[in-house]
């Protein structure tokens, strides 16, 4: 599991109902079930990932996040997870609002575009490629990159309250100058 997912498992309370948006092969949901007894559903659009979820015995719903979370009633989940998914979404604000409509809290993780290595690569004239940003510009599924500062600005603007933040690099927490030294950010947030 990715380091952000390991952090997420720790943040989810025991028995919580979780919804994992962009759940990939369902590995996070499986751990949440095994370690937290947290029942959940994943949302995924890619056929291969959906099939992997079914094979992993994870509940998966093949719908497009861009069209919102109309399958889910208000407040029907304790926790909605966007684990390295936000940067692949076109309708960012809409999905963040949807996340906090259906969930009492949201957990969002994304690769920090403000990490020094990304900044350096851009300074040298290239789009960044790294462990947390593993794609070439022409093949990346990412459409909306942001930095830690950017994300927090958006949360402020949308009235989203950040309850907890964990910034990581190489799987280890970064406390000093996180927007420069952290490559992966994880947030726990609520509506207002």
């Amino acid at each position, binding site marked *: 599991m990715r380091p952000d997912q390991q952090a997420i498992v720790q943040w989810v309370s025991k028995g919580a109902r979780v919804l994992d948006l962009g759940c990939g092969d369902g590995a996070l949901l499986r751990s949440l079930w095994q370690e937290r007894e947290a029942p959940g559903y994943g949302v995924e659009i890619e056929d291969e990932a959906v099939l992997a979820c*079914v094979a992993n015995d994870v509940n*998966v719903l093949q719908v497009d996040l861009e069209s919102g979370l109309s*399958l889910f009633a208000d407040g029907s989940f304790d926790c909605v997870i966007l684990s390295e998914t936000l940067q692949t979404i076109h309708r960012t604000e809409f999905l963040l609002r949807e996340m906090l409509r259906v969930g009492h809290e949201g957990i969002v993780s994304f690769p920090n575009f403000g990490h020094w290595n990304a900044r350096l690569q851009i300074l040298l004239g290239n789009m960044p490629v790294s462990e947390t940003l593993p794609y070439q510009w022409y093949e990346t599924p990412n459409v909306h990159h942001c930095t830690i500062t950017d994300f927090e600005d958006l949360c402020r603007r949308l009235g989203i309250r950040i309850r907890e933040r964990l910034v990581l690099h190489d799987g280890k927490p970064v406390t000093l100058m996180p927007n420069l030294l952290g490559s992966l950010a994880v947030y726990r947030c609520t509506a207002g």
Partner: protein
Amino acid sequence: MNAPHDPSSVGAATAQKAQFAEPLRLRGGAELPSYEIAYETYGRLNEARSNAVLVCHALNASHHVAGFYKNEPNNVGWWDNLVGPGKPLDTNRFFVVGSNYIGSCFGSTGPASINPATGKPWGADFPVVTVEDWVEAQRRLADRLGIERFAAVIGGSLGAMQALQWSLSYPDRVHHSIVIAAAAKLTPQNIAFNEVARQAIMTDPDFHGGHYYDKGVVPTRGLRIARMIGHITYISGEAMAEKFGRVLRRGTPGFDFDIDFEVESYLRYQGDKFSTYFDANTYLRITKALDYFDPAADFGGDLTRALARAKAAFLVVSFKSDWRFTPARSREMVRALLDNRRIVSYLELDAPGGHDAFLLEDPRYHAALRSYFANIDL
């Protein structure tokens, strides 16, 4: 056919019949004094009786789900690509029951059967049956076979409605409900297609108000048109274009009313074939069963409340090219199941086959079913 030598085939199948002498009260108010259900089974019921899977069929199919008949080696079951040793629904692991429904023309008691009260075929007097009635009739078959709880009930289209209804009529007797290319109710447009098909049959001069058996005729013209209409709606425009294009049978337009386009030839062929084996009275009743199916009706149209009874885990599958039972209809069911906090997975596959995609062998579709069945605890 090489089916007899195919190790992934269940081999020669035997149709069986179960007789039930106890009257069956139907949703429409009528009562069947007694009835028979035709069925086939594949694989072995395990000692714990926990490995039974009920396969429910759609409009024009039967209990002949897999394998072939010894004397008819080309008569291969309608879901043979799914059911067999080593296939996604693996008969080495599961005991698969293919059940026909009452009102059918393939062996179960139906309009062509003898009405014990008159000694003549039921014809028009055979009552209108519903999905709920079919489930009730099949429940007795399950009792007869010693199956307390199905590991899964699976079906596509009308078969999926039965799979859903099973989970509502007998929540404790269904572990998994697999609902493919379905809807919790038909749209008015969908009912309209059925009505055109019924009108085609009922206005055929050979229909005789449904009492055509003793007149020695069959309303084949009506059946042909009914089948053609149905067939058009079961395949996607895309699939039709790919299959037929605008190919002219005679190379050039005939400027007459013989067959010009390949698609016309295909429809006529399908219509002709259907009219030789399918019973018009059955067709009328099955389309009515489709139209009437609406478990939410008793709950003020609230599907969430209607599905609150279900206890099964669900797998819902839809196909993007299916315009007869669109993915939106499947998502309604998923939403209602989620509202009830039921275990559910939903696949919306980009397969080109239209409504009939549920019968085809899309690799993603079959891979999903294979994994899903493999994960069912027995």
